[in-house]
């Protein structure tokens, strides 16, 4: 028997949503054949079977969230058959719950009629000592509702100091424990979604209570949503996958980072002329589209080298600023399934052509949902270009834990004043949103000023970057 645990799906990924099982219990699967498709916060992954054999069982229905390290399939590979039955038999008995039940004091034999033959007074077979019991082997004093709360939040009650009389654990104790940095997985469990089928109301209330206890921000009202269906028809879609990831990241960024937005306009008339000329001249060559974005990435990289504060991260817990000596620029891509940020690595040593080609390739992969996970990780700065879709100005939200993001609006021909004359120029509106903890307004003005200068003159771009 082989117990297949959901493997590590990449840095920072602890769970995935089951999209599709390629096998059913009873099927025979060959090694490396597709077993299950799992969607993580970042991508959909098809996981091959590591062994050949008969599928004994699978865990997780479609839509269920499974954790890495969790056994998701048992495959009978014809080896070590004795191991699993023993483990299976031991598993139920070893759970603390079993001990909790045994601690219940109904003497064995009594609730049923007294046998004529000697009835052993011993407790049931699975009566074992409560592993985490306190005084006299009794379980932690806590009301059923508190125990339910702890279970739903993934908190081990035996670790929670009880403030009530007799050491009773209160709901507030559980929430305080959670907020106070529970040992590793508990905190994650608090925000982790329960399975898709879980009772929405109960889950929602529980998470809200946990959020309220964890945030403790004055005037912050965390209230349950009203029942919108009373007003008119609604459709409810569970928050999953990319949408949920974006929700978490943006909330974290907005709450944790004091955002400042600095705006300026770049005159890209000359750059656009140059770009379009090059594009025409090089037609037929595999240079990609030679997009404006690739020029901006090049210019930004030059700017970051001069202003390292915008290529940094701030660690609020260790109270450190980490300056990165590498330049990995992410660009927001609208994939149709949600926002994905492909990362172009080493933009300081890549040519504009290389960057342009990479943008095109990675955007295409992202749209197909096939962008490898590593191509979405390790970014140091992000650019979001809504220009092609329109918009005169935007205030982007920082892609935490980066410290700055550049928003590009639409390039438009505008009347501007040059040397006392009104002329028509191609104008690119730019907004730099940055983390005020790491940089100040003057830094941003200089950073964006330099960027605007570089973008207005292709020769400067050539010379300086």
């Amino acid at each position, binding site marked *: 028997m082989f117990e297949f645990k959901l493997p590590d799906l990449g840095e920072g990924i602890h769970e995935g949503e089951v999209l599709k099982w390629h096998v059913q*219990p*009873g099927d025979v699967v060959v090694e490396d054949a597709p077993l299950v498709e799992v969607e993580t916060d970042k991508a959909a992954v098809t996981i091959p079977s590591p062994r050949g054999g008969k599928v004994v*069982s699978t*865990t997780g229905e479609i839509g*269920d969230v499974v954790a890495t390290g969790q056994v998701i399939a048992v495959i009978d590979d014809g080896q070590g058959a004795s191991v699993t*039955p023993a483990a*299976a*038999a031991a*598993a*139920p*008995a070893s*759970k603390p*719950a*079993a001990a*909790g*039940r*045994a*601690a*219940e*004091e*109904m*003497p064995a*034999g*009594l*609730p*049923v*009629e*007294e*046998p*004529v*033959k*000697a*009835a052993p*007074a011993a407790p*049931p*077979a*699975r009566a074992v000592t409560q592993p985490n019991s306190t*005084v*006299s*082997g*009794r*379980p932690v*004093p*806590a*009301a*059923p509702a508190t*125990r339910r709360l702890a*279970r*739903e939040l993934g908190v081990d009650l035996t670790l929670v100091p009880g403030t009530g*009389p*007799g*050491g*009773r*654990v209160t709901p507030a104790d559980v929430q305080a424990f959670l907020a106070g940095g529970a040992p590793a997985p508990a905190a994650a469990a608090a925000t982790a979604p*329960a399975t*898709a*089928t*879980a*009772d929405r109301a*109960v889950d929602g209330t529980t998470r809200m209570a946990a959020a309220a206890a964890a945030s403790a921000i004055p005037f912050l009202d965390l209230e349950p949503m009203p029942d919108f269906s009373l007003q008119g028809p609604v459709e409810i879609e569970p928050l999953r996958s990319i949408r949920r990831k974006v929700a978490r990241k943006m909330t974290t960024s907005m709450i944790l980072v004091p955002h400042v937005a600095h705006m300026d306009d770049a005159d890209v008339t000359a750059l656009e002329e140059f770009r379009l000329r090059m594009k025409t001249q090089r037609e037929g060559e595999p240079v990609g589209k030679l997009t404006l974005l690739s020029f901006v990435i090049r210019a930004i990289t030059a700017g970051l080298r001069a202003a390292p504060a915008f290529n940094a991260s701030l660690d609020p817990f260790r109270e450190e600023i980490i300056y990165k000596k590498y330049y990995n620029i992410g660009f927001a891509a609208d994939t149709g399934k949600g926002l994905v940020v492909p990362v172009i690595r080493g933009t300081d040593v890549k040519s504009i052509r290389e960057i342009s080609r990479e943008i095109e390739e990675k955007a295409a992969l992202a749209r197909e949902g096939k962008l490898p996970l590593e191509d979405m990780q390790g970014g140091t700065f992000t650019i979001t270009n809504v220009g092609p879709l329109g918009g005169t100005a935007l205030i982007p939200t920082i892609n935490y834990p980066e410290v700055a993001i550049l928003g590009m609006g639409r390039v438009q021909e505008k009347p501007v004043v040059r040397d006392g004359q009104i002329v028509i120029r191609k104008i690119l509106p730019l907004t730099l949103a940055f983390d005020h903890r790491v940089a100040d307004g003057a830094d941003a003005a200089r950073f964006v000023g330099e960027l605007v200068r570089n973008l207005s003159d292709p020769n400067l771009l050539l010379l300086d970057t």
Partner: protein
Amino acid sequence: MVMGSLNTEVEVVVIGSGPGGYVAALRLADLGKEVMIVEERERPGGVCLLEGCIPSKALINAIELSEAAKGAERLGLTFTGLKLDHVKLRAWTDGVVAQLSGGVKTLLQKRGVEIVHGRARFQDNHSLAIEGGGTIAFKQCIIATGSSLNRLPAGIDQSVWSSADALKLEEVPGTLLVVGGGYIGLELGLVYAGLGSRVSVVEFSPRLLMGADLDLVEVMVKQVTKRLNAVMTDSKVKGIEPRDGGFDVEIEHEGKTERQRYDRVLVAIGRRPNTDGIGLEHTKIVVDDKGVIETDGECRTAEPHIYAIGDVSHGPMLAHKASREGKVAAESIAGHKVEFDNRAIPAVVFTDPEISWCGLTERRAEELGVTVNVGRFPLSALGRARAIGHTEGLVKVLSEPETDLILGVGIVGPHASELIAEGALAIEMGATLADLTETIHPHPTLSEALMEAAEMAAGTAVHVFKRS
């Protein structure tokens, strides 16, 4: 309802419609699951409803009324011509059972739970064969097949009564021997005593109700022996022979064997989980040597998609334990984070007076070597008990000396079965003595006794005088 042969697929199938199975099915349906219930009996409700808790309580109520009437003379209340017609009583009891069973059926039907009649047997871990034809393929399953009465060893005549036979109330024998001094034997023995039989009880153990604390049992025994012909403890039934419409029974006590004659013999010597013959061998489900299915805290068996609840799983064979497990299993199937982590499963014996307890007993505390603080309050000191003329009884509270946490409650006396619920709540809540003593209990009621017992444990009682 489906009869006969079918081949079908369903999300969840529940085997058995007793207080575990039907509660699980209803909860599952409410959680949006497609549920089917397989029941081999004609009616839903299981042993509890059809031939256990419910009919026995209907009988006991009638007997208690009659006993109360007989004992009312000292209150100036004299009944003449008091007559208990067992045929009418049987009709009443049948009516109660029919109403409740019909109610369960309606509840299931209104939720769209399909009831399949027949005996289910696992073919493999994802399908059941139904006796009489047909199969049901399922994604998840709950085994709630309950338990059956133990029979006397082979060689002893099998025409003796089981508790189910006794509940049918077909006749009132002149003399009745009850084999087994557990709660069922005592309850039914008292019913027949009330109907006019001369009832004797024989018990193998040194005393009745071995699991309950002695102080509670003693109070009850003192009362019931007045109504029973004989209570023989430490005694063994060696042989039962039918003869001339009655039974000759050999009973061994302290090395001597005596032969006694009884019109009827009722055997109430425990129950055994119904786990044989249901095809568990076609699954990985683990069963212990007593036929009990091993389960985890969510009531899952070793097959994670198959659950086992009630009498087939570990713990006391009680309806209320089965119902709670039914809810846990149903919610687990629906993906909720649940656990059967109850600390107090109340035990109730409907003798007269009643006995009930939950949580830790003194007997168990001694076995575990745990020191407990015990507060005892006699009903003789309680106004209401005096007023109703039932002062035989006591309430005790066991608490943890260091923390005052309530660990156990034991009661003997009128309505002990009702009063124990507060004790169960206190234990589940992690309540301390102060929580009980500082809660206002209505006066004059028997419920005050629990508060007073907590006062005794806390050393704050005013209604009892202790010489220093």
